[in-house]
């Protein structure tokens, strides 16, 4: 049917008929957010979800049609060596009236780095100095008590003994993780464990398997020629040998521990006090991220709900953290290459750090619970309420950095709203936006089709409502576009076999995913990504610059 319709088009005849939706813009998008949680710019995982997040939240910069950065929240910027200085526009606010200052910007970035936030794409942080170490969770801070380095808790992996100085790491000192006592399958395939180190010509006896996603603890090491074999204890208890080349170093997620219900319930309190109000009750084995310690209490973020609060130290199972050992090196003295930290990154880190004594190696093994993951290690500082300075990674140009600042994960979010509602802060009743649209709650009769409804914060282009649909079958969307129900099918949503026929139609827009169909009555909508800034419906005026919510 679709073939017949597409192939029978007259020259200059659009494929879609006249719109039937008035001031509502209806679009078929792939990967539309299915839950309100995906409206969080940090947690948006699909291109469409990121596009929606960018409609809800403004960034420091915006990218124009050719990809050049334009001022948005940041009114101006300047480059000072490897440092990028940005100045925010005055009187910026979220839709609930909360101000947008450098405090909110830095808070949002640090929040995105926390494991409990569940950020999907941390790559934009690579523009920052030490960004890669932070993204890979290999940069930690020594805990408040300080720590004495130990030799390896198991036979060293190095073929030659490492001259480890029993050095003291100062509280608050930044270190980089080089190795751990945990390994996981490296390459999406289970790793067979053998009872003995496989010898040439001998048929080894199987001792178990380390499945993808499992982590084994190293309990022994053996070098056989040029190959290194590790003895692992798998989670199921099986102990066996595997080749080091089939394994990857497993750096544990910092501070993630389960709670333990000893029978009285695990209470999440508003403060580090027995008398503090109770914010919620956690279930046994719920995972939390420890963000601070305060006497007998620990400040945590609940992974499931995003709620923040304090739990008693006794209610948290820290055994796993005590069993994990990390080999660390003080950040100021990172030199040379290491098997687990390749030469290029180590050299960049050493060159960019303020090394006082570049040839001094202070390293050793610390228990994981002696270290904390501190997102404040991100090399960005606020000068005042409107000025901030970013120290860029070596080789990062200003243009590249500015382009990356437009990424959803680097867009500021309202701290008070997030702190008050956890992961539920993006629900339509709670969310505070800084962009041109906000989500609207709808009772859906067909939950699998209508993915999201957006309404503009400021009336523009004749659009009073945007409905994003996500039909599972592309033919369905095509038929609905044909009859005028849908106003557009964005790039990647067309049946591939029909693209050559549809390409002749005036409402076809080429795109990297095959192309899009956009009604001739809709102007200013690109094929990809989702960008509603300049959209006008037939006869409506266009507003090129987004005024944002009024102060």
């Amino acid at each position, binding site marked *: 049917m679709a073939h*017949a319709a597409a192939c029978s088009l007259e020259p200059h005849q659009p494929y879609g008929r006249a719109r039937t939706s008035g001031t509502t813009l209806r679009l078929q998008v792939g990967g539309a957010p299915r839950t309100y949680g995906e409206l969080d710019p940090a947690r948006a995982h699909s291109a469409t979800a990121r596009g929606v997040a960018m409609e809800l939240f403004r960034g420091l910069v915006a990218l124009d049609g050719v990809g050049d950065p334009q001022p948005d929240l940041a009114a101006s910027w300047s480059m000072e060596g490897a440092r990028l200085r940005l100045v925010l526009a005055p009187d910026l606010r979220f839709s609930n009236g909360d101000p947008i200052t450098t405090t909110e910007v830095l808070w949002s970035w640090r929040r995105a780095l926390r494991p409990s936030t569940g950020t999907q794409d941390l790559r934009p942080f690579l523009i920052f100095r030490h960004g890669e170490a932070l993204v890979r969770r290999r940069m930690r801070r020594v805990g408040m008590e300080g720590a004495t380095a130990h030799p390896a808790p198991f036979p060293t992996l190095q073929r030659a003994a490492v001259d480890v100085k029993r050095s003291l790491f100062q509280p608050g000192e930044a270190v980089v993780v080089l190795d751990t006592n945990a390994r996981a399958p490296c390459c999406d395939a289970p790793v067979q464990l053998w009872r003995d180190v496989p010898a040439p010509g001998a048929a080894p006896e199987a001792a178990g398997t380390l499945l993808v996603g499992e982590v084994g603890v190293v309990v022994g090491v053996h070098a056989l020629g040029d190959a290194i074999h590790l003895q692992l204890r798998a989670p199921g208890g099986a102990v066996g040998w595997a080749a080091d080349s089939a394994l990857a170093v497993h750096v544990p997620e910092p501070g993630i521990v389960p709670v333990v219900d000893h029978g009285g319930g695990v209470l999440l309190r508003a403060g580090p006090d027995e008398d503090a109000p109770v914010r919620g009750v956690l279930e046994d084995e719920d995972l939390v991220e420890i963000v601070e310690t305060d006497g007998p209490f620990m400040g945590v973020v609940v992974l499931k709900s995003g709620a923040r609060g304090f739990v008693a130290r006794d209610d948290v199972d820290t055994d796993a953290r005590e069993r994990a050992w990390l080999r660390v090196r003080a950040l100021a003295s990172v030199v040379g290459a290491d098997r687990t930290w390749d030469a290029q990154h180590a050299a960049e880190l050493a060159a960019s750090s303020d090394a006082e004594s570049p040839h001094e190696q202070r390293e050793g093994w610390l228990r994981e619970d002696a270290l904390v993951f501190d997102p404040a290690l991100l090399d960005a500082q606020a000068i005042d309420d409107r000025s901030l300075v970013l120290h860029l990674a070596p080789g990062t140009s200003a243009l590249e950095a500015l382009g990356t600042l437009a990424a959803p994960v680097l867009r500021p979010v309202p701290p008070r709203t997030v702190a008050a509602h956890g992961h539920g802060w993006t629900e339509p009743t709670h969310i505070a936006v800084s962009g041109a649209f906000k989500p609207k709650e709808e009772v859906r009769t067909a939950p699998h089709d209508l993915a999201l409804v957006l309404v503009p914060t400021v009336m523009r282009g004749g659009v009073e409502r945007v409905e994003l649909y996500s039909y599972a079958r592309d*033919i369905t969307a095509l038929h*609905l576009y044909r009859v005028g129900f849908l106003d557009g099918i964005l790039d990647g949503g067309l049946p591939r076999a029909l693209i050559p026929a549809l390409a002749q139609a005036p409402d076809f827009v080429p795109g990297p995913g095959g192309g899009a169909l956009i009604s001739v009555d809709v102007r200013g909508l690109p094929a990809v990504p989702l960008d509603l800034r300049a959209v006008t419906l037939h006869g409506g005026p266009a507003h090129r610059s987004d005024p944002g919510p009024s102060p």
Partner: protein
Amino acid sequence: MMVYVLRRLVRIPLVLLFTFIPALVLVRAAPGGPWDPSRQLTHEVESALVRWCATDETPLLQIIGSALVWMRFDVDGCTGRSLRDATPVLEAVRRAAPVSFALVACAIATAVVVGLILGALLARSRTQVRERAGAASLAVVEAMPGFVLAPVLVLAGSLTWGLFLPARPQSLWTWAVAVAALAAPFCASASRVVRDALRDPGAEMRRRADLARGLSPRRCSVRALRLATLPLAAHLGTMVSAVIMGSMAVEWVFDIEGLGPLVLEAAHASDVNVLLGGTFAYAAGVLTANLSVELIYGLLDPRVRSRR
């Protein structure tokens, strides 16, 4: 009658069990199925299945065990999860089945009503031309399957003339078109049954007897029509199964989220567990529908009620 109904209700699970076991045998033998040691599944699905698809049990025990779990409407760890994404099959079936059965119920109701009206009109044809034209029309429509009629309706009525939405019926009007596409051939067959019943020589004799007793012609017609519902009710038994099976194609064309697309997509992806769930749902639907038809017949024919 109540005893009969209760006996049938007790038998339904047993019949379901014995119709389901051959399906499980096929799943057991299916290459790439959950019991195939060389199955190639994603890591997520594999880790969901590996604990449950124990291969140290005999095949017979595996099959019977799975069947009993299904009969409890529980999620069998081995055969009760989709081989594509490990989601419970029964959940998908629970979402899809009401939609399919609503479509089927509307189609059957339409077929019965239209069949009665059209059959009565055709039975009154007095000229040979009208009679032949009516018979030919019924034959053509009856021979036209839903998977032909539905796309024709969509192509002409929606994509060309824009009279209704081509998919995802959101209004009564588009839903009515989908129902019409499914019901059309059954309307024709029901009309034929009613027409033949009204044309039956016995029916004519009863009508004359009623007229002789002093009943009005209209009342006689109503009585005749009521008697014609008996063969129609008898015909419903085979019709229901055909409507249920035919709904798969109509749901696919109109993209209605029923059992049809669920099963067809599973077949395309070789997801035998979802196919099993669809089989379970269709079998349960057919058995329940047949029982309903028998009850309706019993309500219409007091002789049957007293015998039961």
